[in-house]
């Protein structure tokens, strides 16, 4: 018998035949292997120590007493995360995405209308009345028109179709002599939520223990960070507190163009709090009231406010004792009065 056969036999079952014993006499290595296999076999067989089985009822009582902790919200969350480790990666990504959208001030452009440019190297022979008639017939309002020599520009067109209609009408009148170009107009909007919130200026002045002049000064200080020339007045009349804020552009140390004027009403004992949208309030309302009825003026003002992003403004007109008309505009909590 050779070593390979002997080892194979011993591995299967450690039974030592006379043949195997004969081999051991000349092969100490196989003898050693057989000895250790026999030893292992004896030890495994002898390891039959048994203990009494714990009664199942005793086990149940013991386990129940260990008082499995009540499932709390956090333990449920932990269990869900343990069972679905990919969930935590998903949640991490969602949090990152939310922070990215909220904080990163990326901007995007939106189409804000169209401009129509008519012209070439020839003079455009058309009167203002003809242009006004075309605009009136098409049914457009508040269109900007610039006519200079060989170019005619229409601005503030909300739809491309309107530009096409004007171009078609002009084509007939001007007998196909001119070129027409329709340009889209884009507004850049800040995309991040944080940046949009930031676009509002919040003014907050505590009134306790302060005079009206001190409150006015504090309003001016807070707004001076954003505007170059700010004038604020705080008055109390008939049990109401009225705040007037005038913001102008300042160039070369002189206040010139007034940007906007704000009138706010507040309770006498309350803190003064209001917000200004930096985008909207940079625009003025330019209204020519002469020869127009109250309804016409209100429509015009509402249309201009809608362009400035204030579609829900409440507009009324009051007439003073001296016959002067006042336009009252209420936008959210701010009140603007333009005379």
């Amino acid at each position, binding site marked *: 018998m050779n070593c390979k056969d002997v080892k194979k036999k011993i591995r299967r079952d450690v039974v030592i035949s006379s043949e195997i014993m004969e081999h051991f006499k000349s092969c100490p290595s196989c003898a050693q292997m057989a000895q250790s*296999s026999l*030893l292992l076999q004896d*030890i*495994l067989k002898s*390891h039959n120590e048994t*203990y009494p089985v*714990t009664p*199942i009822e005793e*086990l149940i009582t013991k386990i129940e007493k*260990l008082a499995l902790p009540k499932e709390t919200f956090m333990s449920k969350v932990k269990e869900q995360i343990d069972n679905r480790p990919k969930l935590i990666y998903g949640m991490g990504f969602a949090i990152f995405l939310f922070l990215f959208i909220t904080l990163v001030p990326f901007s995007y452009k939106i189409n804000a209308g169209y401009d129509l440019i008519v012209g070439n190297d020839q003079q455009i022979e058309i009167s203002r009345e003809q242009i006004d008639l075309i605009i009136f017939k098409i049914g457009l309002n508040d269109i900007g028109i610039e006519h200079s020599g060989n170019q005619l520009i229409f601005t503030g067109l909300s739809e491309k179709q309107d530009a096409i209609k004007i171009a078609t009408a002009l084509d007939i009148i001007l007998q196909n002599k001119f070129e027409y170009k329709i340009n889209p107009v884009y507004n850049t909007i800040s995309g991040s939520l944080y940046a949009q919130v930031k676009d509002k200026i919040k003014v907050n002045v505590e009134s306790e223990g302060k005079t009206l002049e001190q409150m006015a000064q504090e309003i001016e200080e807070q707004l001076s960070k954003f505007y170059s020339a700010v004038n604020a007045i705080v008055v109390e009349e008939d049990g109401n507190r009225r705040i007037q804020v005038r913001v102008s552009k300042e160039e070369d140390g002189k206040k010139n163009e007034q940007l906007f004027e704000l009138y706010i009403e507040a309770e006498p004992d309350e803190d003064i709090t209001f917000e200004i949208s930096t985008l909207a309030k940079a625009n003025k309302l330019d209204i020519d009231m002469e020869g127009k009825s109250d309804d016409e003026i209100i429509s015009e003002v509402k249309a201009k406010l809608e362009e400035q992003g204030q579609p829900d403004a409440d507009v009324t007109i009051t007439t003073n004792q001296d016959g002067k008309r006042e336009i009252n505009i209420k936008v959210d909590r701010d009140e603007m009065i333009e005379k």
Partner: protein
Amino acid sequence: MNMDRQQFWRLLKPIHPKAESFCRKLTGNRDKGDDLYQSSILKALRKIKSLKKIEAFPRWFFRIIINNHKNQIRAPLWRERIKILQAMEVMNPQNDYDAKRWLEKALNVLSADEKALVVFYEIEGWKISELSDIFKKPEGTIKARLARSRRKMRKVFEFER
């Protein structure tokens, strides 16, 4: 699957003696075995929803015991292996106490799965087909692993000689 605690105890009752004995033999110690068994029951109660079919309960529960034991002994097992290789006490395997120590030493050179396999087959007397079901491996693989485990354990005794 939706299973209440009462149902769990009803399923555990038929395999309770075998499972408890297995835990004791696996740890080589009654108290440690009982601790392993109880902690495995607690884990099983928490993970009961992962059990898909009632028929799979014995296999599922023994798998929890094996994994629980694996987690408990991981680091100490590695240190134990190094101790075995570095120094062996001279023991008389004919003596019962020494026999137990020998077995402990021999089992400690095995991985947690190999140890479970040896305890199931050599000590508890489970069949190859039952082990194949628990470990979800073909019977040939189970036999090969048992043979490998015996070879490893045999080396413990050969080393001493």
